[in-house]
């Protein structure tokens, strides 16, 4: 086991922050604040990537951090903010029932995530790989959010937070995917958000709101 240096400790702390933000998102009902939380998640992600890059002396991770900064902290939130304003849902309040239950399920998911990560972390050659459990927890909590929410906009936020969790998993376990693949992933994500934007308008045009409860007509009959 290599010695635990300062940068690694900070990255581990940031991983904890990532998990906390995920829980905060789970309980947040305002669309606007959710988006701000997503931006924070991006900031934490960029910081941790830069730290990992600095401690492991990997230039390509700097590029990947820059790409994340550009995409997840600047471009995507900007698009989503503009969409929110255009759709007039900035102050939307989503009634959330059973926040305590949601939190409890979330806690169980975190425990499950650490169990799932056990075989990989047991073999960890770097201390960083130990944070895989947190990455999986962020992914599972985002799932929970997508499942629990009934608004199109919040589901998209959940989707992006899921993507953040995946990115975190990739940087900490493997020092990031190869650069070309990351570029491809970034392009896909950008296109996905554009399409989500188009969808918001289509859904509102047809259903007069972004509530997904109305999207329940296709059932087995």
């Amino acid at each position, binding site marked *: 086991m290599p010695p635990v240096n300062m940068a690694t400790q900070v990255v581990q702390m940031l991983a904890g922050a990532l998990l906390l933000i995920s829980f905060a998102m789970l309980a947040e009902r305002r669309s606007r604040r959710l988006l701000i939380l997503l931006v924070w998640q991006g900031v934490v992600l960029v910081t941790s990537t830069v730290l990992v890059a600095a401690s492991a002396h990997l230039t390509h991770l700097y590029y990947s951090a820059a790409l994340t900064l550009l995409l997840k902290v600047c471009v995507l939130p900007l698009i989503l903010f503009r969409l929110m304003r255009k759709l007039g849902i900035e102050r939307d309040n989503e009634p959330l029932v059973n926040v305590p239950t949601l939190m409890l399920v979330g806690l169980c998911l975190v425990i499950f995530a650490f169990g799932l990560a056990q075989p990989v972390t047991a073999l960890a050659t770097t201390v960083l790989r130990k944070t895989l459990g947190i990455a999986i927890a962020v992914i599972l909590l985002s799932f929970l959010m997508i499942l629990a929410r009934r608004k199109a906009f919040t589901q998209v936020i959940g989707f992006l937070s899921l993507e953040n969790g995946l990115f975190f998993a990739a940087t900490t376990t493997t020092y990031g995917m190869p650069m070309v*693949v990351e570029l*491809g992933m970034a392009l896909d994500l950008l296109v996905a958000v554009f399409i989500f934007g188009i969808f918001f308008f289509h859904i509102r045009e047809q259903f007069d709101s972004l509530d997904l409860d109305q999207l329940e007509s296709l059932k087995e009959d």
Partner: protein
Amino acid sequence: MEILLVLGFPLLGAALLAMVGAKRYAAEVSVATSLATLLAAALLVLRIIRHGPMTAWNEEFFIDPFNVFLVALTALVGFTTAVFSRPYMRIEASHGRLTPGRLRLYHSMYQLFMAAMLLALTTNNMGFMWVAMEMATLSTVLLVSLYRTRGSIEAAWKYFILCGVGIALALFGTALLYTAAEDLLGGEGMGALLWTHLNAVKGQLEPRVMGMAFVFLLVGYGTKVGLAPLHNWLPDAHAEGPTPVSAVLSGLLLNVALYAVIRCKILADGALHSTLPGHMLMGFGLLSTVLASFFLWRQRDIKRLFAYSSIEHMGIITFAFGMGGPIANFAALLHMTMHSLTKSAIFFAAGHATQLSGTQRMDKIRGLLTIHPSVGWGLMLGGLAILGMPPFGVFTSEYLILITAMRDHPWATPVLLVALAVAFGAIFSRLQPMVYGDTDDKPLPHSPALVPVFIHLGIVLMMGVYIPPALAEWYRLAAQLIGG
């Protein structure tokens, strides 16, 4: 070089059609693009037959008998679907369901979708495979919602979220795969995600990490294959999207996703030294087959009916790959080909049938043989073929799968037989009244393109009676590669 052509034509076509897609001749441009892609694919096939497996561009692309046959199949069905959609979309436009702007979106995205699938098939890089699969989802989401009806928007949203989440799991699996490989092959720039490199060292990959990676990859790509219990998006997307899109989703996209699963299975088999990956495929496959065949009875919508039949057949193929071994793999590859040709032919015929009667509800579709005999015959013969009637090729592959199951896993045989019988009853009892009987529907404003239907069914019939030795050899080689 050939790979460049295979990928370049649809990409160029997509760019061109993004500009001229609303013009009258757009459908012809699309057909020409698909034809060029098909010819390029034929060149690629010739090259592989002559020179054997190849890699290109710093090994970023890799062609072997397994994927080259899927490339040829994809290009062929892509071409016939483009031919079919020319009159089909014209009829839709004259029924007022589509505007020129949406036609442009349709033609351009169709070609982009083709390019994405061909990239997923030919790339050697597991990361790129993921990117291409995601691209295939993104390019079809707006096609599913092309009619902008409530149902189609709901279906597209479901498709987007479910496949988006599924594919995210596959990305996590890919990251884990990279973790396992990095220690052996080195990091950035060392090609640790290249399938050929991974395949060379698969025996030394850390089994626990690989096991976990395979579970995520299977569930992730399995969502796109439509394996139960993650199949929910599939019937909706097939029923609500335009028929040519249903045909390529069912006939091609499911195959490409399954291809990704099998590539991962080859690696996992080597790393785990156990039958676990095979058993997982068998479990998912059997569950999908049984579930889908019972759901078939509850369908009233013709396209939903055949969408469930696709889930059933993908289940059978997955099950066969799970059994592994030369015969089961051979049968699975054959079944992939037969299913994709038959199912797209059925969707072509079903699409025109719904245009004739103006509804997708099967109890309203009547007397197809009276009003338009070739549509009726297409639907009838296609239905019989997909139900596994001899002498069609589906019978051959299903028979091979059943006898292998009887030999290796006798417990599974009765389950499969019951599922097949249930599916037979469900589809046949719906098909008969649609084809026979009387009707007062009016004929179509443009004559339909039924040549693709009969070409597909002709190939399926031929393969049932006589598989050319060269083709059989090719399947055998591919089956050998998959091993298991």
